[in-house]
């Protein structure tokens, strides 16, 4: 290891142990005092889970769901923003042109043919939710995710939609965000700073 000190790195020294600390007895006594104080304080902190389910705060980040639009179709437009943002690389989408001849899909251009999230690989950071321009993906308060196989916990589009069907009516997880028709773009673009153009592009003539 190098011992060279740079200006930006602050080097700390281990504190020196004096004769008082070297006896250890004061520290042991201090620890005992804390334990005894807690033992007789009269407050119980053991959770009676699963008999009593904990209160989950509304901003808890649990299992994902894919929201439906007013017509019951998957709201996701397959823009891949979540897949791009995801630091754990656990979202995989395959997009397709919407079935234009189906009157039900006439006003849509692009939709996710498949949409899978590996719930085991996910770190529940919520970046996908943050990135989605149409509020289609959300993290719910479902925290007790279990399964018998790993494969079971790779959620596909149907499973993610069924999480929406279950959670959106249960009351705990209303569809939280609902920004304007243009999404967050209109607000955020106004505050965006200028930057260099993205690299690796062909010439524009």
């Amino acid at each position: 290891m190098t011992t060279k000190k740079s200006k930006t790195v602050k080097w700390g020294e281990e504190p020196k142990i004096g004769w008082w600390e070297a006896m250890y007895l004061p520290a042991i006594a201090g620890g005992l005092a804390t334990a005894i104080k807690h033992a007789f304080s009269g407050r119980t902190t053991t959770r009676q889970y699963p008999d009593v389910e904990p209160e989950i705060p509304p901003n808890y980040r649990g299992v994902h769901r894919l929201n439906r639009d007013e017509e019951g179709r998957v709201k996701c437009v397959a823009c891949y923003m979540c897949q791009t943002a995801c630091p754990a690389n656990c979202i995989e989408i395959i997009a397709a042109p919407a079935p234009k001849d189906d009157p039900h899909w006439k006003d849509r251009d692009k939709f996710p043919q498949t949409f899978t999230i590996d719930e085991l690989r996910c770190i529940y950071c919520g970046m996908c939710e943050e990135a989605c321009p149409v509020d289609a993906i959300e993290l719910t308060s479902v925290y007790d995710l279990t399964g018998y196989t790993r494969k079971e916990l790779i959620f596909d589009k149907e499973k993610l939609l069924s999480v929406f069907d279950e959670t959106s009516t249960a009351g705990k997880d209303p569809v939280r965000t609902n920004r304007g028709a243009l999404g967050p773009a209109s607000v955020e673009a106004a505050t965006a700073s200028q930057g260099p153009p993205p690299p690796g592009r062909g010439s524009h003539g």
Partner: protein
Amino acid sequence: MAKVIVNDIEVDADAKDNCILAARKAGVEIPHYCWHEALSVVASCRMCLVEVGETKPDGTVVMGPKLVPGCQTPIKDGTVIRTNSDKVKTAQQMTLELLLLNHPLDCSICDQAGECYLQDYTYKYGNAASRLDEPKLQRMDKYHIGEQIALFTDRCVMCTRCVRFTREISGTAELQVTNRGSHEEIDVFPDTPCDNKLAGNVVDLCPVGALCSKDFLYKKRVWWLKSANSVCTGCSTGCSIHVDQNEDKVYRLRPRDNPLAQGHFMCDEGRFGFKYIHDERRLRKPKLTDALAVDAGTASKSAKPNGTADLNFAEPWLDVLTVTRNKIKEAIKTDARGFVAVLSPFMSVEEAYLLASYLKSLDKKVRLVLGRVPVVGSDDKYPKGSKGEAPAPDKIKFTIRSEKCPNRLGVEMILRHFEGDLVTVEQAVARADATAWYFVGGYNVGWVTDPIDRGVGKPSLLIVQDIFASPLSERADIVLASSTFAERDGTYVNHTGLAQAACGAVRCPGDARADGRILMELAERKGLYNAMTLRKEIGKAIPGLAAIAVGDLGEHGVKVTPVREPILF
């Protein structure tokens, strides 16, 4: 040369430049939509408005009272361009606000997002707040605009680049502007879709996501594509291209500007003709006949009759090249004159050199011949006249050549160097005196014609290095599974003698290998295949190819001189 001052930076510009080009030389970007280097100037989008002034003889600078479109304003010595004044910035913001007035802003589903000039310019020069209170105009998408192109009418910024392209470059004039004012739309006449052989270029020209390629539509977001500089192998024009890939899959080819090669564009045949790279029927591993496999002692490892092929971890190339090498030496020892190697015009200069120099080092009497040169129809020249006739020779802007291979000239130069005389495979087959054949294929379509098939017959040794199965590979003693242009580095010499470097973008499918790697190992050369190093070697060895001795050919390539050389062997 003209001295121009752009935002207080002084540069030497070409007297023929407009303000955009002059500013580019100073490293200043003037945003623009309708102007394109290869098209006529219409100055209709007003994105490029700048302040322009001139230096008077006494040294004072007088700025013009109004903003002028930079694309249409020529420069002269002493021209002063300002792109960063408040006046210019306000104009840019207003132009963008107008362009976005009826724009759907559906970047989330737009294929152009990530390489969209409306996004970029709005981000860099725009104001982003719209003052429009009315609902936006909505127009129908037109999927019928062309077989390969779809028009998302809402996203169009009416730059008319696409219209001018079909009028000035392809000369077919299918696209036009219909209606007026804010109801203007790009359209085609009923039943005359934009299906000319250069139509795909309008997708690249479109600065926004209005014209999209149906082939690429919704396949991949562009920010995941990694691009390699390559050369189209569709014909001997040798268009410079970008190969855009992700996770070993090529998604699209795009033309790369190269004034020495083709200019700005490429043809649809080349653009969409890369699909064979991912064909299921590609040869995926080398093959030895059973007899040879027993010889090599690999039979016990690779032949598992009980259907456990998937669990067979034996290296498929194990010993294959050793057997090949031994067989070649054996055949040459028996009859060196009867050993014929066929070098295909799809090989790169490096590969042809590796194979030729190796075989000639074994015995100078070995014959090297040029593989079949596929020719289809005649040269197709653009822009077409109103009746579809070819343009006058001095008006040609793009040519699709009838010679459907990238490197006939390069391989020919190698052959002339080693062989002196050029013999084609057809002539060699007609002579019917060969006892052993080494065929190199790599063609994008089937190439084994009847005369070749019959003429080769059943020689004592038949080696085929190819990407697809053919009648020859079916009965070959040794099949070496090789690579397409997208999987290998190399140099191609186009019809004018321009040597361009192509870089591999993806890996070979299965256990197939890049030709260069096969040949390096076959020739028992030290080290890995490296096109740059080989170019230096070739440049030194072959006078006609001396220009490629620089190694790095740059983005545009270098001209070589195709000359007849004295016979060296």
